[in-house]
Each structure stands twice: as C-alpha cells, then as structure tokens.
C-alpha cells in the first residue's frame, strides 16, 4: 500500500526564507500596496513553496516569485469582484496634498500612489524589472507573457509613472512658491 507522505523541509528551506523573505515582502508590498495583504501573500507564497520544495529547491527564488505574482493576481481578481473595495480603491488613488508630509514621505508616498494608478499588468512589470532587477526574458518567464508584452508594459508603465510623478513635482513646486 502506498501512502503520500509529507515532504521534508531541510535547512535549505530555512536559509531560503531567512535570506529572501524580506525581499519577497517588499515585492508583495509593491504589487499590492497594502502591507497586510503583502504579509498574507508572502505567507501563502512560502507555504506553497514549502509544499513543493522538492521542485522549488532547484530555483527557489524564481519559483517563489512566480507563486507571489499568481497569488497577487488572485487577490486582485478577488478585490475586483467586491464593489466596496472598488470604492476604497478609488479613494486611495487620490494623490496626497503637497506639503502635507515631509519631503521624503511625500516622495515615497507619491511613488507608491503612482504605482497604484498603474494597471496591474504594468505594475507587475515595473516591480519585476525595476525593483527585482529581472531582465526582460526573466520577467516574461515569471509573468508567462511574451517578451514584447513585457517591453510594452514597461514602456507604458514608466511613461505613466513619469507623468504622475512630474505632475506631483509641479504641484509641489507651486505649493512651495506660495
């Protein structure tokens, strides 16, 4: 009689978690822009990675990145099905009033707000390309899209971010002038 036995997690899994969980959490935060959701996603990601460790251990970073993106998409789809979250999402999309925070906080806050205003697919590409520093081919592999799609999303995403950040920069300059 054959029984499915639990997979064993060795110290290499612990090393992986200890080394990469912060980066995973930061990536999750940039994908979701919600720390609570990001923490949930990282736990889900690590659990799924643990469950398939015999496969994942060959390239745990790449494996966990893909799991994280998929989990993030699941969350995105779930939120879109909930009208109350659509409303809260719209409310969150407002750029904060210039001068209401310290310069550094405004920079960080503005950047994350700009990310928030991107389409989900553009945000994924921006995070993978410019936060995790994956190349086009690696990004395409994680997202399971053609490289051309990665390039176009990156281009449009960057352009959109530039617009948003420039607008904020101008508004801030005007506020300072007064």
């Amino acid at each position, binding site marked *: 009689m054959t029984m499915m036995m639990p997979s064993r997690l060795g110290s290499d899994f612990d090393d992986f978690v200890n080394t990469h969980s912060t980066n995973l959490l930061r990536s999750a935060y940039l994908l979701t822009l919600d720390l609570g959701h990001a923490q949930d996603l990282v736990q889900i990601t690590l659990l799924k990675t643990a469950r398939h460790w015999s496969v994942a251990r060959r390239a745990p970073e790449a494996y966990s990145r893909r799991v994280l993106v998929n989990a993030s998409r699941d969350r995105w789809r779930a939120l879109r099905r909930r009208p109350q979250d659509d409303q809260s999402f719209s409310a969150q999309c407002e750029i904060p009033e210039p001068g209401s925070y310290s310069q550094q906080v405004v920079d*960080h806050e503005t950047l994350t707000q700009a990310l928030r205003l991107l389409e989900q697919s553009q945000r994924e590409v921006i995070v993978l390309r410019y936060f995790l520093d994956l190349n086009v081919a690696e990004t395409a592999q994680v997202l399971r899209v053609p490289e051309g799609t990665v390039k176009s999303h990156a281009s449009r995403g960057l352009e959109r971010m530039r617009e948003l950040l420039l607008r904020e920069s101008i508004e801030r300059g005007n506020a300072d002038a007064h």
Partner: protein
Amino acid sequence: MLTENGDVDAIRTGLHAAVSHIAAPPDLLTQVRQRHARHQRAIVTSVLAVVLFASGLAIGSETLGRTEVIQFKHVDLSQYSAKVGSIPSNERVSTTIVLRQGQLTISPAPEAESPAVSQQSALASWLSHGPAPVSGGAAPTSVLFGLLTDKEYATIQPNGSSSPIYVQHPTWIIEYLNAEVPISGGYVPGGSQGRPTLSVGPLYGFIDAASGSYLYAVSQTVPVPNP
C-alpha cells in the same frame, strides 16, 4: 523627484527607498513551518481516512495492514434500537471522549439534538463497509449518538489555512474498546522479522447521524508482540 525627462534609475531608486523600511517579521519562518506542519498533518489524516474507507480496517500509528477476519456476520442487528428521533440516554454519549491528544473529541449531544437514522441503521451502515476489523467477536462495545469534532480532518483553504470538516457533527459512534486488529503487510519499524501480527486498542467508526452514511474510522491500536 523626477525631472520632465525622468529616468529609470530614479524610479528604481525610488522603489527601493519606498520599501526600505519593510522587513519580514522575525518569526515568519516559525509561522510558515507551523502552518506547513498543520497542512501536512491534514493531508495524512485525509489519506488515512481514504485508506480506512477503502480497506475498512484500523490503523495503528506505526502499522498498516489488511484484516482477513470477517466476523460481522455474527452481529445481531435486531438487538439494536430502530428508534429515530428522541432516543433514550443509554444510546447517547454521556461523557466526552478525547483522542489524539485532544485533536479529536466525541462529546455528548444536547437533549434536543436527535439522530435522523436509528442506532440499528447506523450499525448496519458501518458493517456494510467491509469486514469489521476485529477478531474474536464482532459486536461493538457500544453504538452511541454524540457530537464529533476532529481538528485534524480538515480541508485546506486557498490561503493555506485549514478548516475542520467535522465540528460538533451529529454522529453515531461505533466503539470497540479492545479491538484486535490482525496485521499483515505494511511497514513495521525494525523490519519484518518477527514483527507483530496483531494490534489491540480502541477503534471508533463514525456514521453520519443525519444521512446514515459512513464517514471514517480512527483507532489507537498498538501492536502486540508475538508470543
């Protein structure tokens, strides 16, 4: 932050700066390992339930085997109550039974709670699922109505958490206090040489009190050294 021409480096730097204050909690690994362990236990429990369902035998913690003993034909069903609904107290669990270090409990049902199938039907359902896994006597020690809670027999949610399938579930419990379960085949620590051929201990079969369907069975039988 950006000039009109803004560049990728600025965005790259900005992204890193925006999350530089975020760090994984120090107990993350512990949390993940605990949740992973719970998940694995749930898998094992589910597999055990399937195995029990398929073979109709009891499993000790370290033994697997198939019984060849067929004694249930000696059970006289007419000795068991055919009453449905308000059943007497002698057909009810009177004190809580705790198994698996508290992971599984069988507790008394409130007086108002009654089974939709009779004691007799429940036992017939149990017996119809294969050979009673006991030698030397087919009749169970008792057939009682109670509430089943099993924290380990669970389904896994998409987010990794587990939710028990049976919580205070109205159930007929077929109890054998000293079930003798023959062992043949399966893994036994220390090799097969002179390994035990019998395990003894409590065995519980669970029948849904609403539908009369077989749920699963658990046992805590312990291998007995050969004479």
